[in-house]
């Protein structure tokens, strides 16, 4: 069956009216399946470490907890934790966009650092590698960090003890 063709004029008008809005429909889950247990996991690019470290330091610089960051960026708390803690985690572009907004960071660079777009700038890569290397703190833990650490260790020990008892 032959359908009428859209004229160029009509297409241009509809394109203007579309106004670069979202057209996202459907869901890839169920169609695409993750590769089954690859023999060798692909290496996580160093830029991904930089992304997590950048979000972490930006957040701490504002003295926000991860919960506060998640709330302000309107992203899931699990996602916020994964972004900071798991370099292999690749956030959805929406989350990156929200983070860019609340942390006043350039969205395009963040899309690259987060693994949502490919890197084409050697300068950005060099800067990201250097940042990832330098952002690993060597200073003493702050009181809040020490308290959080102690609390978590105490919970771990407690749970371990409970298991031994049961």
């Amino acid at each position, binding site marked *: 069956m032959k359908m009428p063709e859209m004229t160029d004029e009509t297409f241009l008008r509809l394109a203007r009216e579309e106004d670069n809005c*979202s057209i*996202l429909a*459907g*869901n890839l889950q169920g169609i695409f*399946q993750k590769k089954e247990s690859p023999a060798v996991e692909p290496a996580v690019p160093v830029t991904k470490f930089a992304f997590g470290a950048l979000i972490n330091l930006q957040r701490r610089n504002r003295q926000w907890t991860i919960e506060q960051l998640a709330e302000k960026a309107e992203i899931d708390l699990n996602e916020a934790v994964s972004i900071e803690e798991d370099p292999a985690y690749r956030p959805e572009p929406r989350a990156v966009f929200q983070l860019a907004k609340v942390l006043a960071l350039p*969205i395009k660079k963040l899309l690259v650092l987060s693994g949502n777009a*490919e890197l*084409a700038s050697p300068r950005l890569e060099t800067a990201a590698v250097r940042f990832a290397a330098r952002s690993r703190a060597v200073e003493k833990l702050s009181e809040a960090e020490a308290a959080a650490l102690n609390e978590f260790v105490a919970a771990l020990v407690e749970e371990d003890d409970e298991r031994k008892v049961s």
Partner: protein
Amino acid sequence: MPEHNHWNWDRKSYDLKFTAYRCIGIRCDGEIQGLMMVSTLATEGRSAANKRKPVLYVKYVESAPWNLKAYVGEDTRFGGVGTALICAAIEVSAEEEFKGRIALHSLPQSEQFYARFMEDLGIDPEGENLRYFEMSEEQSKTFLKGGDK
């Protein structure tokens, strides 16, 4: 975009194992600007106009983020990605003898776009609570002529 970034379509398109799906992409400036996947297995229509008639189910549509105002503001690269992909879906539907009838589940942020030229059949609890839209033969012809539904 100031740098020649590439939307990582590999993430979206790796490991495709089903032959009943067709992937259609729009390539400009050597890059994929939008991607769509349709199921060529006939799906029964739900709207009054499509009742007991086969429709082409659009399983997935997405535009590259640099073409979306929500991501890059006014600095978008190409427009009309959605319009072009819907045209392509209608064409595939016609090729498959579904007469231009198509259906999809829209994500909330895209509902306004699809509501203009497709029939809104409401939230579909069996479609991940996404809103389900259908386009009839007449609506697809109207769309191609540039009119709203």
